[in-house]
């Protein structure tokens, strides 16, 4: 029997709320940024203290070539473009473009890990000095952040492949992108504070 009640539309969608994964990721990003603020702050304070006393910050014989760091910076910036592309493509339901963009982001992230580890082989810096300890701690922690960001992006890629995210819901990808942008921002600070100013 087709009554008016039987043909009623489903209940209205609940009002939009802040999204749980996005909020949680934003909080995790805030915490991660604070961890790096602490680490880089200690690095700069120690470096300033040594230089203020007329000492040399980097141990004698240490080479800290700028090129791998700058290549890494450029690669990170490119990865920022590709992850933005991925989010945009999913929003428009251009799935092939989204897969390509996410794949490129992961490839760029792996390339930065490669350039940083290559830099380690070039700089001839022992961990047993205060400068070495702090540089390895800061850059090593950032490598860990890149790995975490890549895992996050990869998981979201697989979820997108599985059809979980689409034009009207791309929360997971936006969350992964947010974390990745923070990774890029931290690298930019490291690039300037450590690789450029030395």
């Amino acid at each position, binding site marked *: 029997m087709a009554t008016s009640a039987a043909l009623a539309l489903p209940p209205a969608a609940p009002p939009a709320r802040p999204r749980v994964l996005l909020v949680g990721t934003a909080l995790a990003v805030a915490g991660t940024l*604070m961890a790096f603020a602490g680490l880089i702050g200690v690095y700069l304070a120690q470096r300033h203290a040594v230089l203020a006393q007329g000492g040399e910050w980097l141990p004698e014989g240490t080479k800290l070539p700028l090129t791998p760091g700058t290549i890494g910076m450029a690669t990170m910036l490119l990865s920022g473009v590709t992850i933005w592309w991925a989010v945009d493509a999913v929003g428009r339901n251009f799935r092939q473009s989204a897969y390509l963009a996410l794949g490129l982001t992961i490839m760029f992230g792996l390339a930065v890990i490669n350039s940083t580890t290559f830099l380690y082989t070039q700089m001839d810096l022992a961990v047993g000095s205060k400068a070495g300890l702090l540089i390895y701690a800061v850059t090593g922690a950032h490598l860990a952040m890149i790995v975490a960001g890549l895992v996050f992006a990869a998981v979201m890629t697989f979820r997108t492949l599985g059809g979980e995210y689409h034009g009207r819901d791309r929360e997971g990808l936006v969350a992964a992108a947010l974390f990745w942008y923070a990774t890029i921002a931290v690298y930019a600070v490291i690039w300037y504070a450590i690789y450029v100013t030395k």
Partner: protein
Amino acid sequence: MAVTETPPETVDAASATDASPTPSQPTGLAAVLGSGDHKVIGRLYIVTSLILGLVVVGLGEAFAIEGLKPETLQIFSNDSVFQLFTLARVGTIFLLALPLVIGISLVVVPLQVGSHTVAFPRAAAASYWGWLLGSGLLIASYAMNGGPYGGSSDGVNLWIASMGLLTVSVLVAGVSLATTVIALRPAGLFLSRTPLFAWSVLVAALMWILTLPVLFGLIVLMYIDHRHAGSIYVGSPTALYPSIEWLFRNPQIYVVAIPVLGFFGDVLQTVSGARMKLRGVAQAAIGAFGLLSFGAFLVAPSEAALDSYLVVAMGLLAVLPLLALAGSVADVFRAGSFKLRAGVLYAVAAFLILLLGVAAGALGSIPDLLDAPTKAGSVSDNIFFLGVSHAAVLAAVIAGLGGIHWWATKVGRQPANEGIGMLAPLVLLLGAALTVIPDLVAGIVGEGLELSADYRGGLTGTNGAVAVGIGLVALGVLLSIVSFIPLLKRSEDAPADPWDGLTLEWLAPTPPPLANFVDDLPVITSAEPLIDLREEK
């Protein structure tokens, strides 16, 4: 007939889609080990932190007794006194106060904000198991002669790793709690209408998220230094504890006690039965206290940093939010009534001890008021700051115990014993005052905290009071635990709302089921939805 992109569904179909399948309640060991239920995780935190907390309090009592006659009493060997002192201090925060506060928050906050679950339940469960493992490893590291001032290299590595695990676990719990308050509130429950306890947990969690990662960064540095760099910087066993001393003094120590303010406001407003006209002031006060507890910038402190205008101003200003909160809470009694409950005694006791600590912290922040520290560059070696630290931690512990009592029908199966519950906070208040005040006096008269081979903290004359005080705190904790015994007993007629509550958690049955609420929540139009419901009737 209107044409829509999505075909209209029948009411039956819509209802079928709307009614999500009820998850089955796990039983037995799976209900504990594999649970993502925020109440189960919270209870695990509460029980474990109370067990470990009694050990920590016992350790503190042993130090106080040794301080009575340091020359003749030898409770601790000369080799272990430094290490165990650091265990007592780290333990008060990471084994007792923080996990107790997290435990009660995990049980109560999702209920208060009308959520069926906590955000990221598996992460919340992981935070408990990570914290439990970290606590075990921390104690094991001391057992194998590790930790600060330890002689075993492996033991020191283990201590650093366990501190990292504890920190990350607290952070994960903080993210879970903060996300719950921000993103899982029902429509109508704006942040400005959030119950004060949930609001204070949000502020506390945000402050943990903004400050404890700095500690984690330091721990990374410690580990690399000690494991790979030959202990040239913060990884040296003698440098570990001084590097984290900023955690134990004001302003940073206050982050442990932020939920005390929410508990105080929530309980007193509930017994008044009235709406809080100055809710905005109360929320702003709690938020301001949170901001003024940001102490991570002291991670690499110097004498100049401690005497800076910022530190002095933060120390002095921290008193104002407490006074503003007390004023806005007192205002509700102009419209409401007053009923003396054990929860009120817990709340007032916790607030008074925190106020004592914060006022003392303000005094201690004034440069040159206290005698010069005995160790250059150390941030809390004056015993005065031990008193401030104890005040904040004890306030958090009293509020945590009070929270279990107040929300007993959500934590357990029945209300707690009200008679013993009335006595416990009074004993705790007296014990906390006797623990804190002698250290403040000793600090003012210039008796520094001497970590010599014999423990000589404080004044010999006043250490007797401290020993009695810590003993009373232990007694108060035990009394509270005794008053919680009814929580374990099943009851068919346990009230869901024994206090005529004002907020959503009192709509949940006793004990709350897996999804927290049986009936649909009311439409929320104010900060006191249960008053609205009563007025509708």
